[in-house]
């Protein structure tokens, strides 16, 4: 880390249904042992007073894993985000200022990915859909996958083996290329 330059934090979200490989992907990419951390409601963009309205405070914590990739003064954080709807308050904080998101998909359970896709579309956050290489997921061509997920043509669709660093890295590159193209369109 050069001492003369200010470090710049960046973040990418890894979203998708339960058991789709979010933790595996963060693990494959991270230079630090991925940490499972506990996030609490007070740390999200929710007023302290709102907590009083939550009858059972013990239910307001949620586990989240994160990893890190350092590149000179850039420090990229990967957040494996909890997929359940009730944690959307956390997605808002995570999505704010993010480079974009990877939506991991298991074609055997595509319904699990709709919530994430809808969310990122509505927030206009750049995202790519990455089909994880579970058995049988190779049987469907891209056209069929796009159809099933009702994906906009502009959303990149990639195949990934979440256990392999190179494959995960290629997915991140596809996402950053997409995010960059989006900024150029806006400009």
């Amino acid at each position, binding site marked *: 880390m050069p001492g003369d330059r200010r470090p710049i934090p*960046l973040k990418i979200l890894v979203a998708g249904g339960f058991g789709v490989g979010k933790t595996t992907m963060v693990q494959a990419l991270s230079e630090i042992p991925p940490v499972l951390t506990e996030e609490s409601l007070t740390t999200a963009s929710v007023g302290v007073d709102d907590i009083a309205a939550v009858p059972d405070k013990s239910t307001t914590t949620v586990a989240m894993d994160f990893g890190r990739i350092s590149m000179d003064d850039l420090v990229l954080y990967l957040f494996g985000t909890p997929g359940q709807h009730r944690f959307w308050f956390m997605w808002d904080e995570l999505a704010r200022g993010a480079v974009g998101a990877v939506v991991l998909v298991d074609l055997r359970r595509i319904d699990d990915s709709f919530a994430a896709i809808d969310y990122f579309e509505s927030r206009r956050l750049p995202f790519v859909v990455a089909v994880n290489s579970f058995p049988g997921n190779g049987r469907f061509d891209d056209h069929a996958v796009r159809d099933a997920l009702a994906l906009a043509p502009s959303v990149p669709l990639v195949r990934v083996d979440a256990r392999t660093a190179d494959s995960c890295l290629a997915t991140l590159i596809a996402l950053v290329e997409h995010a*960059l193209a989006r900024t150029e369109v806006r400009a």
Partner: protein
Amino acid sequence: MSEDPSRSPDGANGVAGRVVPVFAVTGGRTRSAGTDLPMESLVTVTEHAKQAENLRKEYRVILDIAERPVSLVEVGAALDVPVGVARVLVSDLAEANYLTVHEPLDTDGDGRPSPAVLTRLLDGLRAR
């Protein structure tokens, strides 16, 4: 001994509960004095911190790990406290000029990283 009310009863993070409730660490504060820092904000230790004496353990741990840039989430994980608590402790140290906070400021208006930063990120990832 009653249960620590600040922990979820199922021990979600697999760590034995701390003896002191997490918000006792911050004197009951759940909000930091400054603006709400994004959780990926980085902190680094300052020269001035070398003069810091008699700091409580949590502060000392933060200054130790901030020898290289670390984020609020990493501070939280190192102390086994939620990010909100880490945010308060980091703000205290920043106010004492023991830490420099590096927020993700380089954005292009809609809060997203600027094209210049994205280009550098892309180069960095391709070089790996």
